[in-house]
């Protein structure tokens, strides 16, 4: 049974792209836009890992991130954030904490800068899921 990766991005092209890449890497892709019911869908589908674009304007990735982290049944699911914003360290120290504005919420499990290096992304996913290469 392949592991399930939930890809949340509001750009259909990126969803298609990452889904194809996930499939090619032996995962079962699930894709979502930034719908209102995103938390319910996650709880229902129970993915093994979430790739979340935090620059989704409609419903900001940050608020989705916060909601996942405080939802009882899904808070433990590893999350990789994708952002076009700043360099990784800068973002972690300043941007992310400021955006989250809540000390109880833990940091994401991984962070990928745009443009996405697909190899780096899946190495990180496989590392987080303990999958043997």
């Amino acid at each position: 049974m392949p592991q399930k990766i939930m890809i949340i991005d509001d750009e259909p092209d990126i969803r298609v792209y990452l889904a194809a890449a996930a499939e090619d890497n032996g995962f079962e892709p699930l894709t979502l836009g930034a719908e209102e019911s995103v938390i319910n869908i996650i709880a229902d589908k129970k993915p093994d890992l979430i790739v979340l674009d935090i620059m989704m304007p409609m419903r900001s990735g940050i608020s989705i991130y916060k909601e996942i982290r405080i939802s009882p049944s899904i808070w433990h699911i590893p999350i990789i954030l994708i952002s076009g914003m700043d360099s990784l360290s800068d973002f972690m120290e300043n941007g992310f904490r400021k955006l989250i504005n809540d000390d109880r919420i833990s940091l994401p499990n991984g962070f990928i800068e745009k443009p996405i290096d697909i190899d780096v992304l899946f190495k990180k996913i496989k590392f987080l899921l303990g999958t043997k290469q």
Partner: protein
Amino acid sequence: MMTTLPNDIDKWIRDNLFDAVPMAIAVIDRKYNIIHANKSFEQMFGLWQNRKCYAVYKNRDAACAICKGSEAFKDGVARTNEEVGYNKNGRLTRYIQHSIPVKDDNGEVRFIVEIATDITEIELMRKEHQLLLDQVPCNILVINRDFRIVRTNLRLRQLLGDIDGELCFKALKGYDEKCAECTAHQTFSDGDIHSGSHVWAHGEDHVSHMLVTTVPLRKADNSFDLVMEMAVDVTKTLKLEDELKVAHTFLESIIDTALDGILALDDQSNITIINSAARRIFHFPENQIQITKDTLSELLPHGFLGQVAAGSKYSFLQETEVKTMDGDMIPVRLISTRLKTEDRFIGIALYIQDLTEIKGLEKEKLEAERLAAVGQTVAGLAHGVKNLINALEGGMYLLKSGISNNRMDRVSGGMDMLIRNIERVSMFVKEFLAFSKGREIHVKIEDPALIAHEVVELYAGQAANHGIELRCEIPDPVTPAPMDYEGMHECLTNLVGNAIDACNMSEKKENCFVAVRISEKDDILIFEVIDNGIGMDYEVKQKVFTNFFTTKGLGGAGLGLLTTKKIVQEHGGTITFTSEPGEGSTFSIHLPRKRLPQHNSFINT
């Protein structure tokens, strides 16, 4: 030599002369009885028959303590005295009395003949003259040809003490010899009246400035040995004159060194004062002393001088233009004041501030702001490009993956993705170029309300289709102002478009509204676009004015608000917003009137 008079004259003298002489004559015996008197005596002293001389002269009951008549009876010597007695009306009378003893053959004095001349009038006149001399408000002295002071008036004595007999130059100035310019000397030389200015030194450190006039004191034969010198103290006047001069010089130097132009015109609009700065502003040549009112009138805004002369006390043109002599127009601030004394119009003062430099600085500031916006744009462009590269890589990936896995659906999906995103690249580039290039703004006097109505009109159909109430709110009429119609139209179009989208994204589909509100407060024009749509959360708010930030997916390039901000900045204004998620947003454009661009704007080269 004795001559024999004709008989008739001799007779007239004996019979009539006694009564005809205009002096009072009385004959008095040793017992003070008046035994004879003439008509003049009667006229002066009244009835005398059977009366004592002391009763008639002095109104006394007994002989006088000092009696000149008695002395003459004793020594037989004639005397002349000045006496004071009472006339027939009881008035004090001054008279000169000659007492002449009349001796008999034995040399015994039997009678005294007293001859009195009334000098009351003369004495009165003398007193008046003395009063005049002493109290006239100037110092008077009489000097002789040796420059010795022979007489002074009271005023001078009060100032310098008793200086009679002293040399005038010593007494008045402390000099040891005659003054170089001696006014009295001139009068002694030519007999004319002369005037001059002199400084008298008296006491320690005390000087008085005197305006001196000298006149010859001529005798009956027109000769003169004395000169009267009249000196008026002008120290205070000179001091005032001096202070006035200082104040005038002070004002003049302030006016002339002022950095702003100052002009004064009299009631006929002739120029009376023009300072260097004003000359500089108008480019008046240095050698052109006279500047006519017509010349000035042509350089100032049309009809300005006339308006000021007829109008209220102050006129103030915050920003206007004047022409220079070279025909250039330069931006200035113009302040005028109607000058009045006691309700009489006496002229106009003009104050002209050259705004060229300030305008230049404002332009530089706007340019700097524009460059900063371009910088932001470049940073934003990088973000946009990242997303595009992502999508292009995605397309490439699908293409490769499709070919290697022999999946045609991926190949065609990858192709579509590539084509779509190449189009997006070209759209971004076009919009970015349009933004960075900018558009020259064309400033005219526009009615903000009209712009609002036209934008509302533009979106009326679209709003109605989505069940959104779109309205204009203009509580009070707003005075038209200089602005770029196209630019402000675009701003409101962007904001209203966003507001309608915000309503469409909102969960509540009923009672949605978008309002365009135009108002003015404290000389600031306010354009507001208010909606009760979806509102913005923290993250969205942070990114509102960032390039390529869009909440509309592929629907927008994300340049709308940035363009709006740029146009607002070009109008010297600011744009702010408030927003609550789920409650709606309000975008406010504030345009201070004094920062609005002018015609033939200095903004945008």
